[in-house]
């Protein structure tokens, strides 16, 4: 299958990309690694008229420590996130989650920003960034704004990114030494999560338990008030609205959310994660 026809423009800079988005409006889509967008276009689930290729904006591919945060360029590829010594030391949960995305070929092309903007509620990296209390830096015609991850995932495959905006950076708290856990439940290694759980520093995020990645707020409150892991984990599906599909009924998803939360929290109770 092949995408419907489109015009292709290569952006020479972030400013250039933003100008192109303004020029073409909702008909335009940014193309980074293309590993979320192009498959949708081949199935004709997405049919943008213009693709603005930002894949060569190497200035958006970086990992650097910035005070008590780590700043990651939006176009940093999964493979780079996975293997970055800085992230492995400072934000190991994110590096680990990146190592589980898709398969090796996909990880060599797909980008962190691309995955986040895609807004797939079953995806690994949105869940990890949500658990990490990441901050997403957007640039648009009216300048730069920061959106906390808790406000970024707006709906099913929808994010707070406006049609003329571009995600340029992801800022994550430095958590070297903090314990963490990440449980991705799949049938096959390269599947999307049936349910996923990221736990770090008292925060818990869930994948595929609703239209967006979600925070397990009841579990977090219980942990904050000193509940035992098992008791806190038993609350993990509270407030979620999981869907049913051929892999899992809603009941089974709720069970998995509780089970995987317990396992992630148990892993996270160790000294340095799994």
């Amino acid at each position: 299958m092949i995408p419907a026809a489109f015009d292709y423009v290569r952006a020479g800079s972030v400013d250039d990309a933003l100008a192109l988005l303004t020029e073409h409006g909702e008909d335009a889509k940014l193309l980074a690694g293309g590993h979320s967008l192009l498959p949708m276009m081949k199935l004709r689930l997405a049919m943008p008229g213009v693709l603005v290729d930002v894949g060569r904006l190497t200035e958006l591919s970086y990992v650097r420590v910035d005070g008590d945060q780590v700043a990651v360029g939006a176009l940093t590829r999964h493979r780079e996130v996975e293997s970055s010594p800085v992230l492995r030391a400072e934000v190991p949960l994110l590096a680990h989650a990146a190592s589980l995305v898709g398969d090796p070929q996909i990880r060599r092309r797909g980008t962190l920003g691309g995955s986040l903007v895609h807004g797939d509620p079953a995806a690994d990296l949105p869940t990890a960034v949500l658990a990490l209390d990441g901050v997403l830096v957007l640039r648009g015609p009216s300048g730069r704004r920061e959106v906390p991850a808790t406000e970024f995932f707006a709906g099913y495959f929808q994010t707070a990114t406006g049609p003329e905006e571009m995600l340029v950076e992801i800022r994550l708290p430095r958590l070297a030494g903090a314990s963490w856990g990440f449980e991705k439940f799949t049938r096959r290694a390269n599947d999307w999560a049936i349910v996923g759980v990221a736990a770090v520093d008292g925060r818990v995020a869930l994948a595929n338990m609703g239209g967006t990645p979600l925070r397990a707020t009841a579990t977090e409150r219980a942990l904050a008030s000193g509940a035992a892991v098992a008791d806190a984990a038993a609350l993990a599906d509270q407030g979620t609205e999981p869907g049913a599909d051929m892999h899992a009924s809603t009941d089974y998803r709720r069970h998995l959310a509780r089970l995987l939360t317990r396992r992630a929290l148990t892993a996270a109770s160790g000294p340095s994660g799994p």
Partner: protein
Amino acid sequence: MSILGTRVVRTEDPLFLTRGATYTDDLVDERLAGALHVTIVRSPVAHARIVSVDATEALAAPGVVAVVTGADLTDVSPIPPPFPMFNKAMVEPLLATDTVRYVGNAVAVVLTEQRYQGEDAAELVAVDYDPLPPVIDPRESLTDGTLLFTDAGTNLIAEFGSADAFDPHLFDDCEVVVAREIVNQRLAPASMETRAAAAVWGDDGRCVLWCSNQGAQGAQAGVAGMLGIEPAQLRIITPDVGGGFGAKFGAEPEYALIAWLARRHQRPVRWAENRSENLVGMTHGRAQVQQITIGGRRDGTVTAYRLDMVQDAGAFPRFGAVLPTLTQMMAAGVYAIGKVESRARSVVTNTTPLSAYRGAGRPEATAAIERAMDLFAAEIGVDPAEVRRRNLVPPFTEPFTTAAGAVYDTGDYPAALTAALAAADYDGLRAEQAERRARGDVVQTGIGLSVYVEITGGVGEGGGPRENATVEVHADGTATILTGTSPHGQGHATAWAMLASDQLGIPVEKITVRHGDTDLVPRGGGTAGSRSLQQGGSAVHKATEELIELAKQRAADVLEANPDDLVVDTSRAALTVAGSPDAAVSFADLAATERLFVQTDFTAPGPTFPFGTHVAVVDVDTESGKATLRRLVAVDDAGIVLNPLLAEGQRHGGIAQGVAQALYEEVVYDADGNPLTATFADYPFLTAPEVPSFELVPMETPTPYNPLGAKGIGEAGTIGATPAVQNAVIDAVAHLGVRHIEMPTSPQRVWTAIQQANGVDS
């Protein structure tokens, strides 16, 4: 030393590894210059009346030459049911005219100058559908509540056996009777190469049709029949084929359509389906609902077995509708059960049609009896290996007729069971299992068994167990073999060359094997049903023997010797006078004088019955329900092995597909008949991390039915491994009260089974 039985690496591989094979869609041929590209518009609804097809917009799109609908196919009749016992009203048009009967039913064709234009234009063909109620479950189809073919008056394609003939007292003398329904789920064969075809008609009124297929000769007869032309008007060439697994055996309606389009437009045309099309358009496999009843004594003796099946044949009766007869034939498996009964009813549903998939009727038989054996063992509380041993047919070297009516050639089932249990360390595994159970581990271990026998070589050239071969030696010292088999991964180019090389002394790399062109090889049975070595290989062996006899006659003149005194010197690829090695003439020199070739036929006395035992070890996370295959030990006895490298490869691949059925794969439809597994993102194709390396145990019991002593090995894996793995998953949680879990034994199914065994309603 003979080359037979040795691990000769494939002669096919250097090209495959450096330039890639040449599949149908890779063809560059001047006859196909300027070919139009075919894009098929398929129904997105399962059951509907076609109100209208409006091609106006599509015809105006760039590059569109024509849009063809069923109404245009005035000169071809719908395809009649392929077997005489099928309901005659269930005919299949090449393109739907008034009714669509499954998602994927071909409705129209767009012909474009370029490939990319076709997909754009196909989106613009506006078909107005008036939905009809869909019938998805074959059990529901049996009620005839909604008919797929109103003219047929029923959804029943055919019934094999009759419930009236069932003995009402079959289980009367049994101390224990266990009955339940089990589902052998629908699978997608999912060959890596999808279907593809190209066609052109010559000035001589003949069509050359290239297509991805497992047997050019059978496809020739089938496609010619669909077009209403003489087979001689059709030349079929099958280039390299990227896997078939049964689904590319026989004629595809689409291939007839491609040939028809080439004739109508007086231009070459070509078609290659994409994966989304393949997963709804290419036939599926399995899809049986089985009611099994097994009875016997508390000492473990099984005395009676009944198998009552409903075969989901999909929207049109194809080969799949007759496959349950193979299931019936193999119902008794390896067991000496006194009374065996079976019945099968094939019905249509609003789903993709069914045909062969690796094993084709036999995995279903093995799955049923091996599940039944475990259910029986669980009921009487005896170890499943022990129950099996008590009921096995004893070793036999003369034909043995089972209660189901099959005539097995040779077998030693107890030896296969013993060898597999020893290789797996069955007792050690049971001890480990007991420890885990005692500890109450979250991860529990299951051990699953399957003792199987299958039928191979049941089909062949002209329908019988036969095949032809031509062997020719050339003056330059090379040789050519023509075969009616149709390799698509099996390695016949190497294996058949080994057979000739062994007798002639011509090196394997100097022997070319050609196949898959009806002008070159007019007769042949193709490659299916694990028949190729035992029939096609035997034909090559026989042709080579006859070639040597012919050469001896000619060499006798040259060497002024009695033909009976001549022997082959394989070190020189020559004939010499026995005792006088200086008096020699090479096959090549004989061929320089006069073409040196033989064509011959080999006919076997009947099909052969390979057998074996698989032991699967599975770890199940009892909290999540996820099962992971830890080990798979396989004893597969397919008679004498020609090339262990190739035979092991067949076993590996079959085992993986069996594991896939047991743990992962299923074609899923929703209640409206929408396929939920129509891309590789959704169909859980087995990948490398899900399986361990397999542990193969050699065993060779020859068959007297052919000079090679060989039985078929192509399908052993799916037949043996599938129930072993399923049984292992269930065994892992048996102590929790679970008796059965349907395939695929997905995490949700395992978890649900545990919940239900615990009395939790989930």
